[in-house]
């Protein structure tokens, strides 16, 4: 396990990715390592507003010129994410990371991996995709969004998938880019035509996770879902983020997750 740390970081770069989402690079001289699927708790401002840190998946970590750059991708939805969007370059924030477990990235039996991202669920899967590409593990990447403008980092995704001979499949709800409809439907169509995957790694909005859990149960897929429960502490002490498992236990998703095998989750996830 990689040791977690609470670091002072500086806003090193920020780029808009869509009308609502942006990428932000946070720099620290300290070394930091993370696995795809792990997340960070970020203190987005000073003082008591917002009071609690916000959870963001780690989209990448790189060591460059004596600094660690932690990359996040954020959708502006409220106070904390808005502060991150407006923080001036050079502003200091605190980042507690890496937290939680990660996706299983080893190659498996019976085909390549499938990575399925819905909207702002992309960051942990982009991190996974670029790791897998570097390791030469084959995967297809399914990228879904409401509209073409909200398809994030499509070019980077295409490059990563192509590196190991895989495919990028885009889907938009309104059909403005890629296949029309849900990204889960795009995956299902390929399964129908005989495409087989060793494992499916998923992050996205809850309805999408449920659809995937259902698909996993029906087709006996080995699926890992990254859940987004509201988090208070990110370190297992508030019990505000619990997830019900198939064995009835209520476990903190910040510690035992955020990634869970679909088969471990309580039945209502796949009903």
């Amino acid at each position, binding site marked *: 396990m990689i040791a977690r740390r*609470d670091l002072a970081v500086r806003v090193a770069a920020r780029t808009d990715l869509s009308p609502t989402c942006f990428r932000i690079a946070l720099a620290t001289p300290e070394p930091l390592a993370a696995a795809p699927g792990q997340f960070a708790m970020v203190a987005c401002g000073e003082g008591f507003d917002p009071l609690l840190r916000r959870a963001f998946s780690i989209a990448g970590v790189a060591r460059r010129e004596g600094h660690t750059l932690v990359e996040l991708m954020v959708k502006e939805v409220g106070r904390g994410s808005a502060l991150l969007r407006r923080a001036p370059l050079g502003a200091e924030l605190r980042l507690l990371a890496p937290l939680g477990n990660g996706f299983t990235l080893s190659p498996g039996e019976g085909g390549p991996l499938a990575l399925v991202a819905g909207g702002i669920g992309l960051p942990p899967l982009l991190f996974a995709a670029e790791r897998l590409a570097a390791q030469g593990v084959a995967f297809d990447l399914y990228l879904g969004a409401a509209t073409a403008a909200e398809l994030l980092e499509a070019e980077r995704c295409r490059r990563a998938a192509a590196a190991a001979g895989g495919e990028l499949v885009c889907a938009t709800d309104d059909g403005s880019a890629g296949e029309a409809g849900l990204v889960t439907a795009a995956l299902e169509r390929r399964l129908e035509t005989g495409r087989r995957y060793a494992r499916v790694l998923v992050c996205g909005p809850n309805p999408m996770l449920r659809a995937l859990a259902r698909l996993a149960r029906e087709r006996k897929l080995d699926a890992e879902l990254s859940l987004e429960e509201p988090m208070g502490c990110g*370190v297992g002490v*508030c019990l*505000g983020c619990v997830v019900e498992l198939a064995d009835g*236990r209520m476990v903190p998703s910040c510690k035992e997750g955020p990634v869970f095998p679909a088969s471990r989750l309580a039945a209502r996830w796949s009903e």
Partner: protein
Amino acid sequence: MSVRMATSVGAVPLANPVMAASGTFGYGLDLIDFCPPERLGAVVSKGLSPRPRPGNPMPRIVETAAGMINAIGLQNIGVEAFCRDALPQLRARGAVVVVNVFGARMEEYLEVVARCEREAGVAAYELNVSCPNVSAGGMEFGHDPALLETLTRRCRDATRRPLWVKLSPNAPDLVATARAAVAGGADALTLINTVRAMAIDAAARRPVLANGCGGLSGPAVKPIALRMVWEVHRALPEVPLVGIGGVETGRDAAEFLLAGASAVQVGTATFRDPAAPLRIVAELERFCETQGVADVRDLIGGLQWR
């Protein structure tokens, strides 16, 4: 100048006046990499019941202005698992351990105490009386002075260890409940537990929390907590108090000591900063230094007014 930081809550000596509160520090070992429990005055366990409890449905927490509301529902691993898995490690590290106890019936409090009596390394019990008594139609133990006195006395009879009662700010008459706890044999009082509160999602026309209501904590409750510590200290100046509610900095801790607390507990601040309790020890020491206070105990009840 070096500041003497040691204090005590009644018969419980503490290396410094800062403890990790119940429900915000797990079972004492979850944050050892940020906050080694043996370096705090004490650690208070998550509320323990005789058997494990699953807690409330989600969502259980919501952030509000300078605070948060929680309805965790007292999810815990149960006293047996605590004694087996956490207590031996805490003991080995030399941490001062306070066991926070609750129950849905009086007998359940007694069961938890009885189980812990078989273990070494428990410095005190802290009774969480902000829970509904199912045998009395759901009235909270801490809301009825007569019931509270009986509960405290029965726990008192079950142990020779120091017994603290953690008061609810929602009781109709705070000082009356404080007196009742002391009459029942409490050695010290902890105050305050969370303030009953609610958040509403106007667009959905629903409460945000699945439980409807919950308990407010964090900086938003500090002024209430200070007032309550001060009131109880004035009414019962001989009774050691542990102040809690929105302590975020060493200066906040100093305010509670001035109001009459012998020590403080740090709750919600730990969610913002996993090293908060330890940081607050250092900040309190610096505060004393800059104020020329040689012994932190000189702050206790030192409020200068009338």
